[in-house]
């Protein structure tokens, strides 16, 4: 069905809902690569005028990727909650934007409608929102999850400690874990991306991290972020798995590119839940996503990358995850060209994830072939923290020596907690105080200042 409008005497026509959304999307190198972006800046604005008047119900009647050939579409349609949708069912996309920003849309109201909003509605409304709108609405939404601690509470900012190493040397990984813990980092998860696909190597890391956590009674969870089928094998072999990780995308074909489908994710969730290792809660899934992954797999079906990203959140939402994060600048300049595009995408992803009810975090990052630098990351991490982001990823000195890209540093977490007066998860914060890493008021103690027995013990075991 075509859509169109007259704007200043000029007629603009969009051949389909897909084309309308792609044209309305902010400039993005990935959409240019796909050949689906607006033909001109004016046409992009015209698409937004049309989108503003589009009833939300249209998205329930017109699938962007056909129901018959895509299990993600089937998941979205089959699990749509009519009752949750009722309060906003009369709105247009533009009307939804205004409602989201209104005082009527408070924390409770936003939680009520979350399961009534489809990824396509979330993506569409984000295209009508400025960066400040994305931040203002995200900030009102709270999604709290738990496993061995509680993540996403007001006044808190959690962090993933990412101690990667080029050849998965357990001793070197432990050294990076120590560095992170001493900066108060690691309450979201201590999560290693393994350098190899080796199941025995990953099993060694699972055991090492669990032993370290257990010995020092650290109230957090550990994860080795291998392929979900590897984690299933590791569970079968009896290793202590806290969380199961998987990268997911917004179409069945893109997930096939990752070597997964909904069935294997269900199997993994059941296997991990059966271990019963959570002490505070039972959110056991950890997902990563990122704009451009569907196009990269040739599985975007002509849909713009930001809408495809929001569809990935429908996959994540089906599994009550502990953590979800967009790896926003990781994919490279062919999808997000520069700092401006990465910042915008990071805010969109966080907003869409939160609106759909996900415990959304972010890997604020960039690669060395993108037109971005540390100043761009400073901006994005600050904006996301204002927006109430659940957690951010940190690596020592911003340098991931295995994946060869720059994420945030442990120091960045100190900066954010300090300038915005935020604390880690309460259980983790108490532990930091108990072992002498933090003072009573939450400030980090100098390492030289009375080294605690914990630090001495941990250090002696590594070196």
């Amino acid at each position: 069905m075509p859509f169109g409008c007259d704007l200043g005497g000029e007629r603009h026509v969009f051949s389909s809902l897909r084309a309308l959304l792609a044209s309305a999307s902010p400039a993005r190198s990935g959409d240019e690569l796909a050949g689906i972006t607006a033909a001109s800046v004016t046409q992009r604005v015209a698409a937004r005028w049309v989108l503003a008047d589009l009833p939300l119900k249209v998205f329930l009647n017109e699938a962007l990727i056909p129901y018959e050939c895509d299990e993600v579409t089937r998941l979205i349609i089959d699990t749509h909650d009519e009752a949750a949708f009722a309060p906003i069912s009369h709105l247009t996309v533009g009307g939804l934007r205004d409602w989201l920003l209104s005082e009527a849309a408070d924390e409770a109201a936003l939680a009520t409608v979350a399961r009534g909003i489809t990824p396509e509605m979330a993506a569409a409304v984000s295209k009508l929102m400025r960066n400040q709108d994305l931040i203002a609405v995200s900030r009102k939404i709270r999604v709290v999850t738990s496993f061995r601690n509680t993540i996403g509470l007001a006044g808190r900012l959690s962090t993933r400690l990412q101690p990667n190493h080029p050849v998965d040397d357990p001793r070197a990984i432990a050294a990076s874990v120590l560095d992170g813990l001493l900066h108060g980092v690691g309450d979201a998860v201590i999560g290693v991306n393994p350098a190899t696909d080796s199941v025995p190597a990953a099993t060694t890391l699972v055991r090492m991290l669990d032993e370290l956590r257990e010995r020092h009674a650290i109230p957090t969870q550990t994860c080795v972020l291998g392929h979900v089928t590897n984690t299933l094998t590791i569970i079968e072999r009896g290793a202590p798995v806290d969380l199961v990780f998987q990268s997911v995308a917004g179409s069945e074909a893109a997930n096939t590119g990752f070597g997964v489908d909904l069935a294997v994710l269900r199997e993994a969730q059941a296997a991990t839940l059966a271990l019963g290792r959570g002490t505070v809660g039972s959110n056991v899934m950890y997902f990563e996503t990122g704009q451009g992954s569907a196009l990269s797999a040739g599985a975007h079906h002509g849909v713009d990358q930001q809408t495809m990203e929001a569809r990935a959140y429908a996959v994540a939402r089906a599994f009550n995850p502990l953590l979800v994060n967009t790896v926003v600048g990781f994919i490279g300049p062919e999808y997000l060209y520069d700092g401006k595009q990465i910042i915008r995408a990071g805010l969109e992803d966080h907003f869409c994830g939160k609106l759909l009810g996900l415990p959304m975090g972010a890997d604020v990052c960039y690669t060395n072939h993108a037109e971005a630098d540390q100043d761009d990351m400073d901006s994005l991490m600050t904006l996301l923290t204002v927006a109430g982001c659940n957690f951010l990823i940190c690596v020592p000195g911003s340098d991931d020596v295995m994946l060869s890209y720059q994420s945030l540093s442990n120091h960045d977490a100190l900066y954010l907690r300090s300038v915005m007066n935020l604390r880690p998860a309460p259980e983790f914060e108490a532990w930091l105080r108990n072992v002498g890493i933090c003072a009573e008021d939450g400030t980090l103690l100098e390492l030289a200042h009375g080294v605690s027995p914990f630090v001495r013990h941990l250090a002696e075991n590594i070196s």
Partner: protein
Amino acid sequence: MPDEFWSRLRRITPARIALGRVGHALPLLEVLDFHLAHARARDAVHATLDPDALVPELSPMRVLQVESAAHDRATYLRRPDLGRRLSARSAAVLADTGGQCDVVFVIGDGLSATGVQARAARLVKACSSELGDLAIGPVVIAQQARVALGDIIGEQLRARALVMIIGERPGLSVHDSLGIYMTFAPRTGRSDAERNCVSNIHDAGGLSPQDAARTLGWLLREALRRQLSGVALKDDQLPLLPDRDRL
């Protein structure tokens, strides 16, 4: 914490640990060091491969030179689709090459021509000696190449398996790392899930060419035996760790 303790820890990992702090920020020296590393990585991304210089290093192996449909670096960076296709000239070069073989090696510049220039030939030699009993086809040097370009080359050369050796995206600590991607029955349209990867092959605490070659040898023999590659083929060997001190 005694300095001696931290310097010991820093010797066991290339990660930027124990940097100290000024307030909540990094000390200036660390900030400047970071900027320098970033600048070097940016330069490596934009470096150009000199394929002719690799030919004598690969001798006596037969070498073919091709390029992708991305005609320069700027195009390559923005158009991965072109980097996965052969230029018209290159398609003709490969069409003239007859014969069948077990394995074809492709050397692609990828995102670090610097790394490929320095160590790809050595890695090809290490791999080929590990696979001595197999029929190895010509070595193809491909410029402005993405990983999937290898599958097209392997298909054209009728290889049972394709090994792509490619410059990995430069990082701060290492800007000249190589990766190996192996595909059984290479052909246009293979997905990432159908390839096996051995990454982080470099001299700064990464995998040595010999260790990488041994891992590849195991994967490749399993691929040929089981007639598949990718996520269904698990690397079930014990992990390989270089025994020398790292950094």
